[in-house]
Each structure stands twice: as C-alpha cells, then as structure tokens.
C-alpha cells in the first residue's frame, strides 16, 4: 500500500512540477541602452569584448567594417570614416547560471569617429555617461582613451 501511495505522491508531484509557473525574465532589461541619436550600433560588428574584475565591468568594442579592418591590421594608420564604439556596463550575477556574470547598468558609451580633413585624418571622441548618456564635457584624458580603444586587439573570430 505504501508503494501505491508513493506512486501517487510521485505522480501528483510530477504534475505539480509541470504546472509550476515561476516568473520568466526573458530580457536583460537592466543592460539595455536607451535609444539615442548620440550613438548607433546598427551594422557595427564586434571587435572584441573584455571585463575588468577589479572594477566589476564588462565592455564590448564595436566597429564598422573599416574600423574592424584597421583593428585587425593593428591600427597602424588611422583611416577616414572609421567608427569605434566602446560600451561599458557594470556586471551582475547571472540568475540563470551560478558561475557567470552578465552586463548590468550601462556606465559609458565611448564613440570614436574619424573623418578626413585635407591631407590628414581627424579623430573625434565623445564619452556618454550613465543611463542618460550625458556627454562628458571635460575633454582632458581624451587622447589616452583614444589610444586605449585603438590599442585593443580584436578577438579571434574564425
């Protein structure tokens, strides 16, 4: 009889497991960037991705085709019409996997655009901060950031 009760318990529990409706969080809404004319990721490709474990940040460097090509060549020379965009997020624990961290709130979006001006190439840098993508007015340190971003080695994507 106990066996019969056990079987009944097993069946009812299996049934309960099937109808168990845990809340499903389909999107990572925290990490979403607000739509803004200040940046545009459409058509950009992944150049590389990296994390900073001390700061707890995750970054992805995007680029248009010209930027990707230059990056693979080591950015020895900077050509015109290249677009690099570095997005940096705070990290959060991945609810779906103990042992993983995924992007959380956006920290900054840095956009580099190169344009030809006469015989040389002008490099424009903009840093947008926080969820509201506020343009950083302070221009000091820009050349270091440009150097840092252009110095990123692309990820091997065979």
């Amino acid at each position, binding site marked *: 009889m106990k066996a019969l009760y056990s079987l009944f318990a097993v069946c009812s529990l299996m049934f309960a497991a099937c109808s168990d409706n845990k809340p499903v969080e389909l999107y990572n809404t925290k990490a979403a960037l607000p739509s803004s004319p200040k940046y545009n990721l459409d058509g950009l490709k992944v150049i590389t991705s990296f994390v900073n474990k001390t700061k707890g940040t995750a970054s*992805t460097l995007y680029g248009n085709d010209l930027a990707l090509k230059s990056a693979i060549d080591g950015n020895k020379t900077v050509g015109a019409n290249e677009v690099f965009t570095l997005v940096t997020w705070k990290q959060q624990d991945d609810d779906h996997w103990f*042992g993983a961290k995924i992007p959380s709130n956006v920290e900054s979006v840095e956009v580099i655009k190169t344009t030809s001006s006469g015989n040389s190439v002008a490099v424009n840098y903009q840093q947008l901060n926080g969820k509201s993508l506020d343009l950083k007015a302070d221009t000091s340190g820009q050349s270091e950031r440009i150097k840092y971003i252009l110095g990123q080695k692309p990820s091997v994507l065979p």
Partner: protein
Amino acid sequence: MAMKTNRKPMYQRKAFLIILILFAGFLCIQFVRPDVPNPPVTGDLEAPADVKAIIQRACYDCHSNNTNLRWYDKIVPIYWGVASHIKQGRADLNFSEWNKLAPADQKGKLWESVNQIIAGAMPLPGYTAVHTGAKVSAADLAVLKNYLASMVHSKPADTAVINAADRQYQYWQKNKTAVSKLPTAANGISYIPDYKNWQPISTTERFDNNTLRVIFGNDIAVKAIKENKIHPWPNGAIFAKVAWAQLQDKDGTTHTGEFKQVEYMIKDDKKYASTYGWGWARFKTPKMVPYGGSNVMFTTECMNCHKPMAAEDFVFTQPIKH
C-alpha cells in the same frame, strides 16, 4: 435458503474476480526485473567531508555505483522507472568513475550539477518526494556554492598562455584559419562562418571555467528580440555563442585569449522536434572540429544542461534589447 442469502450480488463477485486477476498480474510482473548491478568503484569523487556528504545523500543513488535501493524502489512497476533512471543517471554523470574525467571536465560537471540543483531540476522532484532525505536544503546549497567559489582563482596569464594566444591570433590575422569545406556535426549541422557578422545579443564572463563569451544572434533572432517575439523563439532564429580563454593582464583587465569554440542553437520546431525544437552543435578550435565526433548522442548533453530552461524556450541568454 441459507445459501441464497449468503450469495453476493453478481457485480460484487465480478469486482472480486477483477481484483484477483489484477493482483495476480501485479505478482507476475514482479518477476520482470531489469538488472541494476553496482559495478566496482574505479575512482570516487574527492571533496571535503561536508560537501561529499551532501552529494552522496542527494546524488549517489543514481549517479554512482553505490546505489542504495529501498524496498519500495524494488516494487514493479516503480522499479522499472528506478532502473532506467539509474542507467541514464550513471551514463550522464558517475561520481564512482570520477577518475575517468579530465580535471577540467570534473570541474565543469560539478558546476553544472550545482546549477541543476539551483534550478530545481535535480535531484528529480519525483525522487525526493519519496526519498525525502535526498532533498538539498538552502544550507546544503550554500555549502556546495562556497566549495565551488573556493575553486575560482583569478591571476594574470603566464607566458605560455600569452604565447599560445598570440600564435593563434597571428594565424587568424593572416587569414589562415579559413576552412575550405564546412565541418559538419553528427546531427547534420554545419559550422556557419557568417556568425561573426551577426549582432551580439549579450556577453558573459564565466568564472567557473575561465572563459569570456559573446552570444551572437542572426537577423531573425535580432528581429524577434526587437519585436518581443522570443517566447517561443521563431523558426529560423540562430544563436552563436563564442568562447575564448580568459587572458588577464597586469592592470586587472581580462581580454579574450585563445578561441575555444563556437556553439550554435538553431530553432526549428519541426525539423528539431525531438531535441526541444532546437538544433545543437559545437565546433572546437579554429579548425572547427565538430563536438561529439560521429556520435549523434552528443545532443543529449546539450539538452540535459538546457533542460532547466524549459520555461525560457531552453535559452540561457537574456538578450539585451537596445
């Protein structure tokens, strides 16, 4: 006269007969017993005593060669289910043959197991309903998680790792990694070179196995994300998840090092109906060696790991929608 009054109505006699036949049948099937042997232990899991005690109590009945069957497990037809669970359980993960796994795979199996417990997929709810002692409490789970966390070490990459990554990079940079013929996995899925032109839908830092990952989605997947139509994902949606070894520099930044693999999930609820509606494949190294070789059963591994995500259409990644 007396006989007539003692006589039970016809329907009662019939019911008695049916019960008798069922009982006889029940007794007969007791002799149809699949064998559940306990093969020798070749190399048992080694872990701190408190950790091991939890794993033994919660997992060993099905995931070791030290199965302890209770009397009520041995009653057919329950026993048939028990026997098949043990067979399957040992094939997927066997702590008694732990030495047969490479150290990296042992680590991977432990993290996967704890994640299955967190997701409520393991131990099987039907099993813990009867074997209440096998339940993993919140305190038990904390012990397991702490043990895993203690195995994580983060340090700057050594020269050998840096050199290996550099060699691979130079090879790729000179476009030498391009494959002429597309490698194909045992389930017929071929490597899709175009994944790198797709949009990234998320990234992951995996501190459990020291990799960095980027998850790409094809146009159909990206469109579905934009239109909030990912539950379920539409047919034709494809993900490519790329994994690299972590390469930590002295400033604390961790870059993508050696390319490890690219994994695909291809949605087609008809073509791949038998594998949760998804086609699964993994290609390792820049040579794109199909995982599983010629054995199509590799998909069982994919499915087992993704099973707890059934409510999310078997997808772990929460896409970032801009």
